[in-house]
C-alpha cells in the first residue's frame, strides 16, 4: 500500500457566524483501510462529513481524492469521482420500492437519465446490478416492498446498498449504527466487516464497540480539531481522549 493516500484532507476549516466548527483538520486514509472518526457530541463530526461529501464548502484547506482536488466540486460531481455516502438519518425515497431506490443509484452510475420512452423496468442490466447490491446487504427478499413499510434496521441496510450501487472508491458512513437495536448493530458490524475487502471505508460513529471492531485507524475529533490519530489500542490508552470524553471543564 505505498503510493499516495486515497483520501488526503489538509487544513480544512469551516466557521459559522464566527463559531469555528472545523478547525484546520488534516487526515489521510490509504486505500483498503477502515478509518473511523469519533468524538463527543458537538465536536464537529457532522460538519466534517458535510465538508467531505460537498454539502458544505470549506473556508480553507483542500480535500484530495486519489491526488485530485475535489474540494471545489459539488456533491453530485464527488459521487461520480467515487465518493459515496450514507446518512445518519436515513434519506430514502419512501414511495418507491426497495429495488427502485437502488436502481436509481445504478442508473445514475450508468450515465444520464434523459431517456424518455423506454420503461425503466426493461433495463435488465440495471435491475441485475441493483439486485446484486441488495443481495450484498441481505435485503433481496424485500426488493418489492415499499420503503415506507421498512423497519429502521432495514432502512439502514438499504442506505448501504444504495451507497454501494455507486461503486464507491471511498465509502463514507455517517453513524451507520445510530438508531439500531443491539441485534441489528451486531449484524451491521458483521456486514461492514465483510465489506472491508471490497472498498475503502471512512466511518463516523458513536458506538465504540463497533469502531474498535472495525477500524484500522481512529481519529478523535474534539472542538473541531483532531486530538489524536492512531490504532484502537493507542486511542484506548490515551488520557487525552478520556479527558475529552469526560468533559474538559472537570479536569
Amino acid at each position, binding site marked *: 500500500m505505498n503510493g499516495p493516500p486515497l483520501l488526503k484532507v489538509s487544513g480544512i476549516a469551516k466557521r459559522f457566524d464566527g463559531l469555528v466548527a472545523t478547525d484546520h483538520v488534516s487526515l489521510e486514509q490509504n486505500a483498503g483501510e477502515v478509518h473511523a472518526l469519533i468524538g463527543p457530541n458537538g465536536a464537529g463530526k457532522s460538519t466534517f462529513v458535510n465538508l467531505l461529501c460537498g454539502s458544505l464548502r470549506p473556508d480553507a484547506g483542500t480535500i484530495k481524492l486519489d491526488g485530485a482536488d475535489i474540494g471545489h466540486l459539488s456533491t453530485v460531481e464527488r*459521487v461520480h469521482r467515487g465518493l*459515496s455516502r450514507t446518512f445518519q438519518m436515513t434519506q430514502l425515497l419512501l414511495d418507491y420500492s426497495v429495488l427502485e431506490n437502488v436502481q436509481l443509484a445504478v442508473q445514475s452510475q450508468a450515465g444520464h437519465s434523459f*431517456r*424518455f420512452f423506454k420503461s425503466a*423496468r426493461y433495463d435488465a442490466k440495471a435491475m441485475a446490478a441493483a439486485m446484486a447490491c441488495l443481495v450484498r446487504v441481505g435485503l433481496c427478499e424485500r426488493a418489492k416492498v415499499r420503503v415506507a413499510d421498512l423497519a429502521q434496521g432495514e432502512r439502514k441496510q438499504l442506505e448501504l446498498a*444504495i451507497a454501494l450501487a455507486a461503486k464507491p472508491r471511498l465509502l463514507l458512513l455517517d453513524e451507520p449504527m445510530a438508531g439500531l437495536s443491539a441485534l441489528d448493530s451486531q449484524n451491521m458490524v458483521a456486514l461492514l466487516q465483510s465489506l472491508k475487502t471490497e472498498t475503502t471505508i471512512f466511518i463516523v460513529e458513536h458506538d465504540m464497540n463497533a469502531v474498535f471492531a472495525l477500524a484500522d485507524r481512529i481519529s478523535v475529533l474534539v472542538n473541531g480539531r483532531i486530538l489524536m490519530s492512531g490504532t484502537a489500542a493507542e486511542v484506548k490508552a490515551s488520557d487525552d481522549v478520556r479527558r475529552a470524553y469526560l468533559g474538559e471543564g472537570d479536569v
Partner: protein
Amino acid sequence: MRALRPALLALLIVLLLALPVLSEALRQPAAIGLATQVLIYAIAAMSLNLILGYGGMISFGHAAFFGIGGYVTGILYSHFAEHSAFLGLVPGTNDMLIVLPLAMLISGLMAAIIGAFCLRTNGVQFIMITLAFAQMLFFLFVSLKTYGGDDGLMMRRRDVLPFLDTRNDTNFYLVCLTLAGLWLAVTRGVVRSKFGLVLGGLRQNEQRMEAIGIAPYPYKLVAFIIAGMGAGLAGALMANYLRFVSPGMMNWTRSGDLMMMVILGGVGTLMGPLLGAAAFVILESWLTTLTENWQFPLGLLLLALVLFTNGGLAGLLDRLWGRTR
C-alpha cells in the same frame, strides 16, 4: 377494483369515441362542445400534473403557457388574415399542422426561460415566482395593443387541416380526442421511463438524489419544459375552439383552475387530470346555469375538499384506481 380497471378504461374509450353519435341521438348538441373543452383542459391538466403530481413542483403559473399557445395561434391567424408578417419576418398561417407544433415550440421555449429562473428556488418561493412570472406575461399581453390588448384577438375561422373540415364541431372534437390520447400516451411513457423514475425521486427527496449523483436542476427543467409544451398545445386548441384569445387565458385564476382539475382527479395519477377536467368543466357549466355567482359554491367545494377529505378526491381515487407510477 384493480381488476376492473381495463374494463373501465375500455368503457371510457368507447364512450368518448361514441360521444358525437350519442349527443345527436340524445338531442344534446351542447355535449360535444363541453366534451371538447374537457379534452383540451385535460391536456393542460395532464401537463401540469407531470410537474406537480409526479415532480412535486407546485407551479401556480401554468396558465401562462396555456395562454402563450393560444396567442401563437391567434397572432399567426391575425397575420394570415391581414396578409402581414410577425415582426415583419414571419408570415402568418392558418395551417393547423404548422400552428400546433409551433405553439408547442414557443411555449416550450418560454417554459425553458421561466423555468430556468423559477427552479433556482423551491418551496414557497417557487409558488410565488411561477405566479409572478405568469402575471408578468398577463400584463405584457394586456399592454400589447397590436394584438388586441385587453380585448384579445378574434379568429374568423378555425385553423385548417388537410382532408378534414375543422369547422365541423364533431371533426374538431375528434382532433382534440386524438391529441389528448397522444398526450396521455406521451405522459405514460415519460412517467415510466428512467427520466420519470428520476422525476419521482426528486419529488420524494432531493438530498437523496444528489447523494446518488443526480443533479436535480436539469431534470426538473426538462420536466418543466415538457409541461409547458403540453399546456401550449392545449392553449392552441382552445384558441381554435373558441376562435378567440385574450389575456384572460393566462390569468392567475386560470392557473388555479388547472390546479383544481389536477386535485379533483387525483395528484400524480395518469387518468386523474382527465377525470378532474371533466368534473371541473361539468361542474362549472352546471353551476353557471344555477347562479351567476358560481365561484362561491365552487370555492366552498374546493375548501371542503382540501380541509376535510385529506388531500382532496385524490385519496379516494387512489383507492379506486390504484396509484400509477
